[in-house]
């Protein structure tokens, strides 16, 4: 399986890595003793480690190539979760179990865990929002966090200045974020791919910098504190009850989002988005208004980010520009890419994995970003379609053209 040539290759790669990492892992200067310690054993570990990783890499590559040759039929590539979701009985059981777990979760685990889960759920909605823009319409948006920030600051500022409550602002935050989506959409209508990514990246930074520097309006880097938590018909909550309440609100929001995004995806509009992603020119030639379709994608995606922004401000009761850096955009994008572009179940699981994993692997927190990067690189090589690739809706036809049964 492993040829001599590959072994030789691996050997040289290891040597190259030892050379590259030499200054960091081998040389250690002791400034007190004024001596240099040469840790040669580290070079050996590095060489062995690199060699093993190389072999592992080759092995997976080999397996992947082999798999493609072995089963060309589509059945095999449909993942387990999709097979479960295809059968109504299994699907209902599956949804029932998830729902039951979601309901009892805060009673089984500590307040801290509930809080973490609420955050993860917020990223689920963010991921689903970005999924409309990136996964369905194929518009690479690197500044998605801007809309999240708009939502959060809408609540923070209106609450601070006018004392408006959570429920009044929740839809408003979404709408204002959506209008920012339009604002971004107009200038980038003609752009695609890399150029679009750069402009959206810039847009994200512009919003953050405005929040940071427009002191009189946004209170600058020090942020806005003492934002009201979500209320429930004027009832007062203790801190713990409030966390519980926010958690259930988030669950509700996730359900609503999944419902809406699912319907959008299977609609005339959803098809137009996917067509736009697949081939812009053909899409126009088939009578789809490119401008309208793109703008709707941008603003609908932004709408969800705005809603989550309001939730975020209400949950943490404090917002400042540091919460809305490019890293956030990158994480949301990773959720979509890792989960599988255009796939709802993929995005949900992607968000849970990416947000919960670092929380439960605190011990490895130093290597967090390293692991994060490594996982993404591996994903791109071995599973570019994401964990759960989207499968298109299929339709079953009976003999008579009148009886066309949509089948999920």
């Amino acid at each position, binding site marked *: 399986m492993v040829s001599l040539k590959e072994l030789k290759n691996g050997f040289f790669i290891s040597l190259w890595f030892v050379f590259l990492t030499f200054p960091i892992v081998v040389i250690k200067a002791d400034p007190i003793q004024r001596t240099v310690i040469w840790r040669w054993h580290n070079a050996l570990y590095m060489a062995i480690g690199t060699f093993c990783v190389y072999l592992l890499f080759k092995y997976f590559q080999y397996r992947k190539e082999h798999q493609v040759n072995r089963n060309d039929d589509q059945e095999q590539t449909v993942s387990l979760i999709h097979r479960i979701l295809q059968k109504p009985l299994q699907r209902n059981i599956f949804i029932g179990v998830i729902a039951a777990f979601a309901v009892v979760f805060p009673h089984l685990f500590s307040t801290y865990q509930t809080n973490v889960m609420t955050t993860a759920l917020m990223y689920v909605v963010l991921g689903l929002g970005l999924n409309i823009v990136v996964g369905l319409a194929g518009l690479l948006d690197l500044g998605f966090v801007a809309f999240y920030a708009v939502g959060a600051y809408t609540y923070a500022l209106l609450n601070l200045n006018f004392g408006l409550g959570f429920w009044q602002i929740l839809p408003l935050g979404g709408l204002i974020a959506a209008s920012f989506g339009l604002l971004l959409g107009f200038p980038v209508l003609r752009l695609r791919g890399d150029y679009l990514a750069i402009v959206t990246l810039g847009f994200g930074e512009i919003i953050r910098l405005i929040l940071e520097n427009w002191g009189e309006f946004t209170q600058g880097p020090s942020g806005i504190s003492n934002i009201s938590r979500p209320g429930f018909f004027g009832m007062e909550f203790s801190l713990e009850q409030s966390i519980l309440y926010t958690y259930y609100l988030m669950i509700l929001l996730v359900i609503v989002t999944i419902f809406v995004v699912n319907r959008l995806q299977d609609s005339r509009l959803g098809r137009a988005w*996917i067509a736009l992603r697949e081939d812009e020119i053909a899409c126009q030639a*088939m009578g789809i208004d*490119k401008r309208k379709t793109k703008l709707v994608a941008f603003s609908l995606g932004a709408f969800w980010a705005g809603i989550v922004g309001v939730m975020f401000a209400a949950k943490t009761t404090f917002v400042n520009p540091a919460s809305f850096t490019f890293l956030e955009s990158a994480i949301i994008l990773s959720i979509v890419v890792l989960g599988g572009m255009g796939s709802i179940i993929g995005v949900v699981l992607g968000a849970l994995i990416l947000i919960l994993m670092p929380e439960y692997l605190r011990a490895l927190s130093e290597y967090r970003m390293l692991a994060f990067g490594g996982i993404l690189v591996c994903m791109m090589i071995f599973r570019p379609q994401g964990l759960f690739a989207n499968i298109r809706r299929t339709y079953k036809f009976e003999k008579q053209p009148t009886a066309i049964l949509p089948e999920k």
Partner: protein
Amino acid sequence: MKQPILDVTGLTMDFGGIRALNSLDLDVHSGEIVALIGPNGAGKTTFFNCITGIYMPTAGDILLTPADGSKKISIKGLKPNQVTEKGLARTFQNIRLFPKMTVLENVMIGRHCRSKAFIFGAILRTAATRREEQDILEMSYSILEKVGLAQFANEFADNLPYGAQRRLEIARALATEPLLLLLDEPAAGMNPQETMELDQLIKQISDEGQAILLIEHDMQLVMSLSDRIFVMDYGKKIAQGTPTEIRKNPTVIKAYLGEEVDA
């Protein structure tokens, strides 16, 4: 005489200093198959791109007569999607399907401009939206049956064999219910068997009253299908007429084969 469906007059297109189309006149009547032929680089595809709104022509006018026979409308300067809405649907020389959508969905996209459900319709899934969606499905499926692709309905478009992809492009264009169907080299790269099937398909569509304008290099196909032929060279129309007339036309022979040199 009846009004032509498509009436192009004096169409001119400049790319910088190059005149790709020079004052071209062309008309297509209902139920007709008209072919546009010419050597490579004659400007045939540029002509298609001009009338479908991908390029903005420098001069000239493009008039379309709506199905109800009312006054002609100019479609010059409209966006490609508006042109399609007005009733011109095209296929592409190099296939441009939506590869990661199913065959059926590809055709359903063609119905886009003839339906109108939008955000709220999609989310609320009202009775009207459901009915519309059902209509789209049925119509798309019947078109697939017509072009003989019904058994592939749930396949991804890029898994289809080449000839079937070409036919899917035609199906997708038909789904927009065009007044005039524009086919840009539909037989390019096809084997003789596939070309023969295509010939039958185009005849069948034409028999249903569909007007067709096609660009094609396969002369056998052109001669067997067309009612009239326009010949272009260097952006100009050099001849027009029935297939028999064109076959004998000395200018056309010169453009294709070059001039005879006396020894």
